[in-house]
């Protein structure tokens, strides 16, 4: 597989729950990745039922140098009482790819997020010893962890977490109108449409402030 190195270095794989209750954190993470000059990638970017899901995920992982893995909703599902394995499984795929992949894949790095500190020890103790960041279900905290992680990975100067958050609030203010005048309803946008709204805002606001 031929991988565009610039794309690879800036691509960030998001491995997180796609539940409605997680939307606020997900959107804040997507915005932060864009605002830090990186490209968010996730399984939701291609809605194609003819594709085998795991094949699609593996392809996206192979194209991303960085990964954000949120294992906060990996616990038991209240209805089925069964654990949700997708996020830890994809984290395993990502780290396996780093360990056993070629020299490009060996450069992978990731940020693991959870709800509270050390909670992971009771269900995923194999990751003990790695830095796990707790967001306490707070989108601003999650965004700050993502910003701080990407700031270490970037050659460019990235604004402080509070500045990125302030920009996110400004984006959120105009997003419903931007969506509406673009023929969309903000509550119904797909991942691709949301990414287009965010990318547009970041592009224009970045031009305005340079």
């Amino acid at each position: 597989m031929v991988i565009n190195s610039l794309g690879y270095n800036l691509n960030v794989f998001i491995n997180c729950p796609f539940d409605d209750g997680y939307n606020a954190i997900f959107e804040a993470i997507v915005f932060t990745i864009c605002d830090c000059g990186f490209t968010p990638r996730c399984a939701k970017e291609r809605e194609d039922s003819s594709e085998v899901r795991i094949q699609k995920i593996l392809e996206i992982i192979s194209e991303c140098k960085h990964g954000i893995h949120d294992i906060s909703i990996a616990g038991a599902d209240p209805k089925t009482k069964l654990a949700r394995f997708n996020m830890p499984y994809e984290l395993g795929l990502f780290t396996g790819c780093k360990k056993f992949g070629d020299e490009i894949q060996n450069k992978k790095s990731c940020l693991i997020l959870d709800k509270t500190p050390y909670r992971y020890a009771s269900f995923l103790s194999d990751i003990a010893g790695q830095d796990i960041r707790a967001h306490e279900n707070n989108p601003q905290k999650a965004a700050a962890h993502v910003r701080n992680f990407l700031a270490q990975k970037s050659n460019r100067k990235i604004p402080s977490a509070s500045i990125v958050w302030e920009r996110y609030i400004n984006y959120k203010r105009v997003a419903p109108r931007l969506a509406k005048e673009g023929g969309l309803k903000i509550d119904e946008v797909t991942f691709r449409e949301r990414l287009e709204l965010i990318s547009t805002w970041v592009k224009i606001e970045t031009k305005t402030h340079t």
Partner: protein
Amino acid sequence: MYANRKLLLSPVVRPSRIKKLEKILIKILEEEKEQKNGKSHSHPQKANGHK
């Protein structure tokens, strides 16, 4: 702080869609700016009127 930054768009984003949204956003931001300026101009006039 954001100077010299090149935005690398996701492969799933449609450049034609971004161009269309850019025009809409510029219009929205200009309208907001005008409204803001209008408000800040009207305030001193009101104050003067009371004098």
